[in-house]
Every structure is written in structure tokens, then in C-alpha cells.
């Protein structure tokens, strides 16, 4: 069986206690694992945005999405297609970097445009932001040197901006 596709849901919710539990509960009820989840208030502090990545087939996801929308505190749901959205994720990781390998690690951090944020005697802590696939690649490379600890934020995403004939579209929306 091929692995089910990643689906990215961007969910605008009221910034209130318990809302995350309501959202998570709808996935848990069906036994769907949430792959990653990022939550933070939006520019309007009454609302928060959840970016949820789930691995499920489209049909059940559509039903969950409809159920999500029934939650009183959920304002808006958008499914973001990876091709039509900008995704970013932040990772910090501590990697072994003793004597001989220290230079190699620093070089790789530079290649990936990461930053070294903490330095120990035999270890470095690195910060790296970017598309999730870039983080995956970096993680794979660092594994060879010995990852001590690693934390990723889960992805956040926004839809890509329209670049085609915006005037026509906006005209269409008038009235």
C-alpha cells in the first residue's frame, strides 16, 4: 500500500481555552494520527491559526474537515496543497562535533544556511529553518555525526500569492 498523502489544513480558530482539544479530539476519535501541529495567535489576537498535517486519505479527511467546521470555535478551514502553498519549519538540533568532525559539521551548517546557536566542548546546537524537505535532508546528514537531541516545530504554511491577472479576479469579486 502506498503511503497516504500528506494533507495540510490551515484552521483559523477563536483564541480560547479548550479549542485545541476540540480539534484534536475529532482526529483522535477516528484514530487519525496528527503528523505535526503548529499553533499561534494571528495578527488579530482574537484568533489563532492551527497548521495541521495529517496522513489520511482524502475521503475521510473531507468528513473530518466538515466535522471540524461544525465546531463553534472554528472560523475557517483551508486545505493547502503543497504545490500552492509556502511551507516553513524550524528545527534546532544538537549534534556531536568533536575534533575531527567539527569542521565538517560547521561546513554543512553553512551549506544549508543554518546557524550555530550554542557551542559545547564536543557538541554544537544548530538552528535551521526552511521547507520541511530541506530539514529532512539536513537531519539525514547530521545523523552520520550523531544527533544528541532534536526538536522540530511542525510546519506552518500560507497559500501562495496569486500572480495571474489579479485585476480580473478582483473585478469578479466586486458586488
Amino acid at each position, binding site marked *: 500500500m502506498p503511503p497516504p498523502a500528506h494533507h495540510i489544513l490551515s484552521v483559523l480558530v477563536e483564541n480560547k481555552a*479548550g479549542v485545541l482539544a476540540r480539534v484534536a479530539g475529532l482526529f483522535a476519535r477516528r484514530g487519525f494520527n496528527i503528523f505535526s501541529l503548529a499553533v499561534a495567535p494571528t495578527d488579530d489576537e482574537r484568533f489563532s491559526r492551527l497548521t495541521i498535517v495529517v496522513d489520511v486519505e482524502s475521503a475521510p479527511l473531507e*468528513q473530518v474537515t466538515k466535522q471540524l467546521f461544525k*465546531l*463553534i470555535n472554528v472560523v475557517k478551514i483551508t486545505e493547502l496543497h503543497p504545490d500552492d502553498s509556502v511551507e516553513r519549519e524550524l528545527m534546532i538540533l544538537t549534534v556531536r562535533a568533536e575534533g575531527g568532525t567539527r569542521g565538517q559539521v560547521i561546513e554543512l551548517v553553512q551549506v544549508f544556511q543554518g546557524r550555530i546557536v550554542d557551542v559545547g566542548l564536543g557538541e554544537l546546537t544548530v538552528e535551521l529553518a526552511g521547507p520541511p524537505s530541506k530539514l529532512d535532508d539536513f537531519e539525514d546528514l547530521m545523523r552520520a555525526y550523531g544527533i544528541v537531541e532534536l526538536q522540530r516545530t511542525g510546519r506552518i504554511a500560507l497559500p501562495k500569492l496569486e500572480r495571474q491577472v489579479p485585476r480580473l479576479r478582483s473585478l469578479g469579486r466586486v458586488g
Partner: protein
Amino acid sequence: MKLNGGQALIRSLEMEGVEVIFGLPGGAILPVYDPIIDSPIRHILVRHEQGAGHMAEGFAHATGRPGVAMVTSGPAATNIVTPLCDAMMDSVPMVVVTGQVPSVAIGTDAFQECDTIGITRSITKHNELVTSAQDIPRVIREAFHIATTGRPGPVLVDIPKDVVDPRNPRSQMDWYWPESLDLPGYKPTTRGHPRMIREAAKLIAESRKPIIYAGGGIIRAGASEALHELATLLDVHVVTTLMGRGCFPDSHPLCLGMPGMHGNYTAVTSMQHADLLITLGARFDDRVTGRVSAFAPHAKVIHVDIDPAELGKVRRADVPIVGDVKLVIEELVKVIREQGGADTPPDRSEWHRRLDDWRVKHPIHFEQGWGEDDKLKPQFCIETLRQNTPEDTILCSGVGQHQMWSSQIWKFDRPNSWVNSGGLGTMGFAVPAAIGAKVGQPGKTVWAVDGDGCFQMTAQELVTATSERIPIKVAILNNAYLGMVRQWQELFYEERYSEVYLSPDLPDYKMWAEAMGCVGLRVEHPDEVVPAIEKANSIDDRPVVIDFRVDSEEKVYPMVPAGASNDDIILGPDQGPGGH
């Protein structure tokens, strides 16, 4: 005006027009019970919190207005979980207020603490923990708005003690009543999409074998008149689901009755052969569809529901319409009239002949023998009860065989006259629901048809009924078994009867009824049925319980076995041969 939270809560309920609260006090909710003494709101003291919840549901079923229940924290809150879930499944508007331990004690495993909000999250339309006394009017107003609009459902408000206790400064608030609501994520769509409505009219105009599949949504939306207009305008037959019984009158020649697992042959088979299902406020429940892949295989589907999540959930709709079913039907009627669609319908005479033929060949049927040794048939009791009760009687039932027989045999001619637990299938629903229905409709006769198994689950609420002078009538169809389970064991488990025998005499239902202040009667022979019902009808100052000793071996037919196609409907003896 300064009030404390308890006063503000009662005042808010008064502002919402609440006439009656079903409840039972306890530690955490104590401060709210004090201002009840000074309020015009009637409080009905139940004997178990589950009873309070089902009474609130019964009240809502019978009146269309939200039922209200109030109980304390911890075990009281968990006791009302079943009615909440029941109301969620059957879209019953209900507001439940639960006490909670003081804010500082939440999460400490305090005495009678439980995570009420967490426990009830998935079985309420919405729930909210009140964190400040000042929020009480807003939260109550929102609760009633959410419970009664869109797809109705239960809303729970959890109130920590410190927020309502006048001895705690945190309970002080400045009274206000919110003029408007701020619910940015809650805007139910009520108007159907005009293009979709035109599409629906087009499908109807082309259909040669249409069926209207009407559900409980018709009753919740108050759409019975609109449905009547649509069905008669089009001359299209109507099936009414278990939750929709009464939404279209059984006495109307276009009414085919109940479809589904124990539906009648014509209702079930008409859907299997239809080329169009005009689905109005129904949700393709598994008890209606049987095996989904074999359900109504030739039918295109128009599906109207206020809940967008129902559209396409089970069966793909050719024309999905989100909206209030009453408004949508009214628009649809208008469009059909404008297009003159009803004037020149396709020839449906052959279809009508087939439907009539099925109705004649396969009616719901039973035999009541009158000999000395003939056993009393439960269906006969229900039929006789119907013939000897006022036309506007409200019938309540529990869950199981007696529920199915009631739905099959009783003639429902009005919406809100049938009160039962459809989705959750809650045994013990009948007695408390009947009490709630009678409180909401004191001028109407309210009968509960109950099973002996169901009755034993919530019978103690008859004490509530007697002490509050709520004269309901209960007909126990006592077959000494958990009858529906027994039926399945007989048919599908090689007659291996596992843990289903209950005994006809233990408890002694007549004595039990009398111990609870009711009049208790017993009926063992068909001759005694009418006199007992007449006796019950003559009593209006206390509840009456009739113990009908019925045939244990009687089964509910027709039946579509679980997971089977509706084409494989099993008819009972004397219901005619199967096949089409």
C-alpha cells in the same frame, strides 16, 4: 444592578423564557438552587440525573422548545452524559447546567470533581466552562442560541462554585443582557442555493419513480406543512423515518410509513426501486440503508440538510442543498410552480400501481387469538391503545421491540407526537421522556409504551411524576425478556439465549407502580386490554402503569438483518410472500 452569579444564572434562564428546569441539587450547584426559590421558573426534582436529562429531551421533543436540566458536579455530571449523547444523536435542543468544584480546586481531584467539559466535549454541540461571573449572561444566551439554531443539539454550561457562591467575592457581577452575539465561527446556512434548488426541481420533473425520504429534520425545522404542500403538489409518496414519524400524516394516502431495518415492506422496497430520493432532513442512517452499497441502487439523490457534514457522508448526493429544510422546501415549491413542473409530470401511474400493490400484499400484520390459551400479542396492545386514546396523544417509547412495534403500528398524524431515542438507542428513555413531554404539553394525553427491560432502568422517575403530579400513563409490554436481543439470538445465534431472561413477576410491576404512588394494573388476556386502557384514561390525578403480560416469542417483522441489503427483507408470518 449588582447580582451574584447564581442570581445572574437564574435571571438569564428567565430571560430565555425558561419555564421549567429538571434537576437535582448537590454541593457545587447549591448556590444556584437558592435563587430558584424566588424565581417563577418551575423546578422538577428528579430521582436520578439521567432522568433530568431525558425529561428535558422529552420536553423538547413534545414542544420544539429547548429543554433545560441542572445538576451538580462529578457523579451528577457523569449521570447526565447519556442524555447529552442521546440529544446529540437525535438533534434535540437542550441546555444542561452543571455545577463544578471551585476554580482553584479544578484539576486537583477534589471531592465530586470530574472533567465535565472534557467528558462531554464530543457529545455536545458545544460546551463552555464559565470562568467569571460577569460572563454568565453571555454564556447562557449563547448556549440557547447554539442549542436551538442550525442543527439543534445539546449545549452544556459548566459553572464553578466560586463563580456563583454569594459568599465568594468572585461571584459578584454587574447585571446586563447581551443585545447581540459574537460567534464568528457559527453562522448556519439557512437559505438553500437557488441554482441547486432549480436543479432539484429539474430532477423531480424528470423522475418517474420518486420517493420523498423525510426524517426528523422536518420536525425540528417545523416543516410539516411545507412537506405536505410539496408531496401533494407533486403527488409523490413519502416515507417517514423513525425520527420523522408524524412529520407527514400516516392517515394520508401518500404516506408509506417507516423504512429501514424494521420498516414495512412498501417503505423499504419503494426506496430500493425508486429512481429519485428526495431526502429532506434525513441522514442515511445505517438502520435505514442496510448495506449502503446495495441501498436504493437506481436512485439519484437530492439531499437537503442544515448540517453540511451530512451531505455526502454516507451517500453521494446528485443535488446537495445546505439549508433549513422548511425554507428550502418552500423555495422548491415556488420554483416547481413557476416552471409548471407539477402540471405535466412524467407518467407515474405504473409506479403508483406497484406501490399500491405492495401495500395490499405486504401490510404490517399480526394475529391476536382470543382462545383461553392464546397469548396476548404486544402489537394488539399497541393497536388497541391507539384506538382508545385521543387523536393528539403523545407516544413515548424506550428502545427495542416495543419501540419498533410502536413505530410500525401507531398512527402518527402530527409532528412532535412521537418521542423516542433513535440514534443512541437509549434503553430507559420512555418514562422520563414521557414526564418531560407531559410537563411541556400538560393538556395532552401522554403514554409511554415501554419494555420490561427498559422500564427497570429508569422507573424510579415515576416517584418524580407522582410527587410533582405529572399524570403520565405507562404501558409495559412485559415479555419477560430483553426482547430484541432475544430475537437476534433466536434468529442469528441458533436459539442460544444468553442472559436475556428477566422474569415476568420479578419485580411485581403492579406493586412497584403502587409503591411509587401510581395506579398499577395488570392485563393477561386480550379481553382485559380495553377495560384496562379505559381505566387508565379515567385517571388524571396520578400516573398509571399497566403491566401487559405479552407473548415472549413474538418477533418484530419485517426485518433486514444487520449488514444485509434491503432487498433481502425478511417478512414475518402472514405478511405475504417476499420478492418483488
